[in-house]
């Protein structure tokens, strides 16, 4: 009697368990695809349009949605949970479905000229401490910026070097030097950007440098001279000034009217050439023609010899044979570097 009741109880418990599960299980032909990271489910099952038409539309959609949501919720509840401030939180994995990015991935900043050089030379950055000891103030101060240590801009007195002009203002000189350094730095920064963007920068004029070469100065002068409204036409040159190099040629034309004798001669020459029956001899052309003919002959001779000759083809062309043996060509007819296809041994 007692044993029977135990079995009954077990059966009952099992049944209850099954009923509980029944309320949350959904049967589908094909399993859904989940992307829990996005809280996303895709149901690939075919939807019978007959069911859809027979049932009420909204009810059908809702029941379909309920089943799918139940499956998604079941999947989410399987994720590891945690308790955060009295709320149960499920950890989500990374989203798996590939979606396009908003913007292309960031590009690394192209190295500056200095960075390139430092890499080439293996120069590494050294970390400097932020605070340094100030001898005069007897305290630790920042290396740079406001209230910096060993501040030489706050000096009330400056030494005049022996070589310097005594009337020169040393304070003003220092400020000017600083401004120039800043300007140079800014210019370098812009040049780095331009190089990174592959933009052409004007390379003319004086670029800030500690010392300009004679060449650069000369170029700067010529650029400055032509930078007027009249392209430098009315600019006077200095007594011993040389013409600037590499400035480009200026085209020159004959005057439209005048110098009749010169023109008459030109016309007559042209007519003479046209009138004569003899073809004009183009020496280079003739020489090339002759060379090509020789080559062809040689090749034909080799071909006649048969396959024996071809075996040694790669190791070298018959050198002594062709080169010196044939001297029957015009002596002065060597092309002056126009054609390079000569035989070895003839050059």
């Amino acid at each position, binding site marked *: 009697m007692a044993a029977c009741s135990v079995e009954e109880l077990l059966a009952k418990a099992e049944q209850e368990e099954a009923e509980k599960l029944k309320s949350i299980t959904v049967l589908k032909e094909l399993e859904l695809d989940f992307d829990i990271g996005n*809280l996303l489910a*895709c*149901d690939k099952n075919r939807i019978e349009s007959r069911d859809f038409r027979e049932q009420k539309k909204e009810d059908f959609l809702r029941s*379909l949605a309920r089943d799918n949501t139940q499956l998604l919720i079941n999947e989410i*509840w399987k994720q590891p949970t945690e308790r955060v401030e009295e709320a149960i939180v499920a950890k*989500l994995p990374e989203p798996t479905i590939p979606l396009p990015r908003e913007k292309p991935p960031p590009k690394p900043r192209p190295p500056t000229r200095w960075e390139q050089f430092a890499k080439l030379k293996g120069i590494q950055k050294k970390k400097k401490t932020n605070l340094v000891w100030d001898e005069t103030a007897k305290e630790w101060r920042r290396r740079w910026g406001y209230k910096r240590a060993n501040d030489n801009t706050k000096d009330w007195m400056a030494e005049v070097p022996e070589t310097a002009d005594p009337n020169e203002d040393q304070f003003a000189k220092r400020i000017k030097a600083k401004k120039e350094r800043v300007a140079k730095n800014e210019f370098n920064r812009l040049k780095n950007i331009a190089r990174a963007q592959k933009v052409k920068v004007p390379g003319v004029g004086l670029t800030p440098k500690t010392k300009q070469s004679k060449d650069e100065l000369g170029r700067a002068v010529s650029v400055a001279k032509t930078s007027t409204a009249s392209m430098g036409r009315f600019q006077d040159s200095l007594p011993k000034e040389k013409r600037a190099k590499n400035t480009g040629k200026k085209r020159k034309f004959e005057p439209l009217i005048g110098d009749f004798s010169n023109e008459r001669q030109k016309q007559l020459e042209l007519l003479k050439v046209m009138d004569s029956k003899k073809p004009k001899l183009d020496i280079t052309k003739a020489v090339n023609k002759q060379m090509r003919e020789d080559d062809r002959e040689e090749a034909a001779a080799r071909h006649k010899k048969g396959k024996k000759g071809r075996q040694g083809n790669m190791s070298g062309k018959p050198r002594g044979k062709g080169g010196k043996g044939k001297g029957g060509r015009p002596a002065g007819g060597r092309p002056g570097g126009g054609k390079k296809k000569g035989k070895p041994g003839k050059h």
Partner: protein
Amino acid sequence: MTQLGGVIKPKTKRSKRFLESRAPKLTETEKSAMIMKGGNTSETVTRALKDIYSLKKPNAVLYKKKNITRPFEDSTSLEFFSKKTDCSLFLFGSHNKKRPNNLIFGRLFDFHVLDMIELGIEKYVSLSDIKVSKFPEGTKPMLIFAGEAFDTDNEHKRLKSLLIDFFRGPTVSAVRLAGLEHVLHFTALDGKIFMRSYKCLLKKSGCRTPRIELEEIGPSFDFVLRRTHLASDDLYKLAHRQPKALKPKKKKNISHDAFGTKFGRVHMQKQDLSKLQTRKMKGLRKRKGEVVDEEQDAEAPKAAKVES
């Protein structure tokens, strides 16, 4: 000089921060959407736009004025607005005789239109038409796509990707289970797309996982697919390219077999066996002048089993 060849140098810290927020990032934040209407809109379209705005809210911009453009003919103005508001998703509503009640869902990549899909509203129930309690703003919705068309048809596939992109909300590492309240269900059936929005009620089921009941809250749409503008495969692939830094690093010398046992490969230097100390015996003692022929085993590093 602040600008040179498209390089903008910020003058203040604030503008620097602003530019940094706009610059491309390694891991991107959520895409935001701009919602705008065309030259003519019907009441349906206006309300639909407002409803979708309220679904998308913290990451959306609703344009109040008309914008007389046609995205399928000229997308330059869209690209301009996208640059201005830093939005890469857009929803454009219009209404005319040829295409009544028209919505254009689209997304941009690098401020150029990637995909555009035009949907016509056939039936519409607004968020405010159904008088039930709604979910709080900014809830991450559960997205469900049903129907085999979303898996077979090319345009539907792209539409699915676009809708996921549009509605998925922020990427989060964890979610509060009680906060899973909103379900967006898309059904592709008979050439139409049914979008339904439900509130999800978690009921006791007797076991750990709750039983779900759904309550419709709107907005609900019956869409028909109209014109599409899909990105070319090259551009689409380019837009999906992930930066190298985000790819997980390969772990060397670790492998798994079919049963999930972990193997580690250990590299050891060759052992000098001539110096191996064996049992000391008088008979084996080295004698002077004897040449010991060295025996060297050239063995490949063996795979040693590691307890996992």
